[in-house]
């Protein structure tokens, strides 16, 4: 992450020098800082609300019964998470929110899942295998109902806004498969080099 952060900032500033766009860099950076705080305040409301709802579902045992249903698939994907651990429920909620195209609702559950995965982590500053798998699946984005995209297509005057559903399903399935396979391959590879 340090490298990516440094690359974005340094690369950006060097590129601005190259492209002669230095004038717009400082205002853009300050504007973005402002936006970040506005987003953060927004996020507090959304995260607070959804985790409140999730807590109710957790206490009532609803999440538990749903995760028991999906457990076999999850145990295969996340072999390092013990049976019945709360992380499973949060991962499940995050992926379902993602699938239905509710970006805003997905983030709180994702953050909660990470927090719970962290309780299983022997080295708190290093990502665990379960975290990497979770992020790989999450960022490859399994979308079933891309509501925002369809709405924007309709707004732009498309004759048939939902005609891309099949294509999206195909592409998202491909990328999730690649994510799962890449994650698996990297996991084996990293185990080998880290043991040395």
């Amino acid at each position, binding site marked *: 992450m340090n490298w*990516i*952060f440094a690359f*974005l*900032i340094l690369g*950006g500033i*060097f*590129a*601005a020098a*190259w492209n002669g766009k230095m004038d717009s*860099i400082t205002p*853009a950076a300050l504007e*973005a*800082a402002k936006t*970040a*705080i506005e987003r*953060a305040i927004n996020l*507090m409301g959304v995260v607070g*609300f959804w*985790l409140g*709802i999730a*807590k*109710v*579902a957790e*206490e*009532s045992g*609803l999440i538990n019964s749903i995760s028991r249903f999906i457990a076999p698939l999850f145990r295969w994907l996340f072999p390092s998470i013990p049976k019945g651990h709360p992380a499973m429920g949060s991962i499940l909620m995050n992926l379902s929110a993602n699938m*239905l195209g*509710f970006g805003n*609702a997905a983030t709180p559950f994702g953050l909660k899942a990470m927090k719970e995965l962290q309780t299983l982590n022997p080295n*708190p*500053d*290093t*990502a665990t295998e379960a*975290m990497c798998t979770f*992020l790989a699946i*999450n*960022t*490859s984005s399994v*979308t079933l*109902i*891309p509501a925002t*995209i*369809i709405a*924007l297509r*309709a707004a*732009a005057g*498309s004759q048939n806004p939902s005609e*891309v559903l099949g*294509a*999206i399903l195909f*592409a*998202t399935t*491909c*990328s999730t498969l*690649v*994510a799962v396979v*890449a994650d698996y391959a*990297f*996991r084996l590879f*990293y185990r080998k080099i880290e043991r040395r």
Partner: protein
Amino acid sequence: MAEQISVSSWIIPLVIVAVFLHGLIKNVRVFEVFTQGAQEGLLLAIKLVPYLLGIYVAVSIFRESGAVDLIVKALNPVIRLLEIPADALFLSIVRTLSGPAALSMMVEIFDTYGPDSFMGRLASTLMGSTDTTFYVIAIYFGSIGIKKTRYSVPAGIMADFASLLASVYIVKRLFE
């Protein structure tokens, strides 16, 4: 289409109803438990603020500088070989960094080429099948203080590249 939107506007309220009903049936003190969860959520969100700040500033500098154009230019031979339109590559790079920026780019593509053109469909498919990889990795790991992200970045990039290739392939196949 109208059906699509109304389905999704019903799902969330129905989920909330189901959760509260189930809670009441199981004798959960729903309000107290809700506030506990909300408190956890707020603390989590506060911890996120510095990470959001860092990511937003870095991404905006990177975007504003035109660095993405330089990358697209540098990758030009690869693009030609795989027959990926430059705009699509540009969109998928922006997509890994910022959701709102990518969405506004998609709208821009709709305006320029039309939503039912090859580029319009490709942009829709790309947006639907990828996520803001760098942003998600930074925020999710940041929230729990992970510094060594191991292989999650290369795995995420591979998945994004796969969805770029898959999108180009399937849109050509289905609509051309």
